[in-house]
């Protein structure tokens, strides 16, 4: 921990809509962004379903919050770790996920991908490198 900045990891392991956890997790991330901590998000197990393209909730009458992920870059939340094994197990590839990018202020505002595909063992390393882990 440097200068009072902690590494926060938000762990998302649940699919959207069936339960409220994914939406209320995102609400925490958005509020937490104001606190100038080192924030990462992890998507594994059914959590990877939160990031899929083409979500359309009109007929279930529930708010579609998936576009909010694309706005995270504006809140300087730019590290979304997605576990490859979790995608594979569910028959998904990166092509099934939304494109989520941020503008890198340290690199002349170049547009860069926020999604970082990692293996299970890399995900374990990400988790082990945190100060605070919040699970949803």
């Amino acid at each position: 921990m440097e200068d009072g900045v902690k590494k926060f990891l938000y762990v998302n392991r649940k699919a959207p809509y069936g339960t409220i956890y994914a939406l209320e997790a995102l609400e925490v991330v958005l509020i937490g962004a104001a606190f100038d901590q080192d924030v990462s998000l992890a998507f594994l197990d059914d959590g990877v379903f939160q990031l899929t393209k083409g979500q359309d909730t009109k007929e279930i009458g529930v708010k579609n919050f998936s576009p909010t992920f694309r706005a995270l870059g504006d809140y300087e939340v730019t590290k979304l770790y997605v576990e490859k094994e979790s995608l594979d197990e569910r028959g998904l590839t990166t092509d099934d996920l939304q494109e989520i990018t941020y503008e890198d202020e340290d690199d002349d505002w170049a547009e860069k991908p926020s999604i970082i595909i990692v293996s299970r063992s890399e995900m374990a390393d990400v988790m082990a490198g945190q100060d605070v882990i919040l699970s949803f």
Partner: protein
Amino acid sequence: MATLHTVNKSPFETQALLSCLGHAKAGDTVLLIEDGVYGAAGGTALTDAVAGLGGAVTLAVLAPDLKARGIDEGRLMDGVKTVDYAGFVELAASHDRTQNWL
């Protein structure tokens, strides 16, 4: 820099325990609480999977939850530690971080 993981679901209901064990590192402790305690039993269809993935970690189980469910400590897999709530607190304090698999 070790992590205390907690798992509160039966492995027969969700993947939480297997996913947790798949991400735990050598030196970590996985504490089974609430319905998670069913994952510590020997002689089940999942015992080998749990023992296989859990090799490098310490498996522990919350005794009050075990007792509540009528599981005799003699039915636990080899090497599983039991702790009470005070022991749970000690584990949380003695590891560098906690990760709760919900």
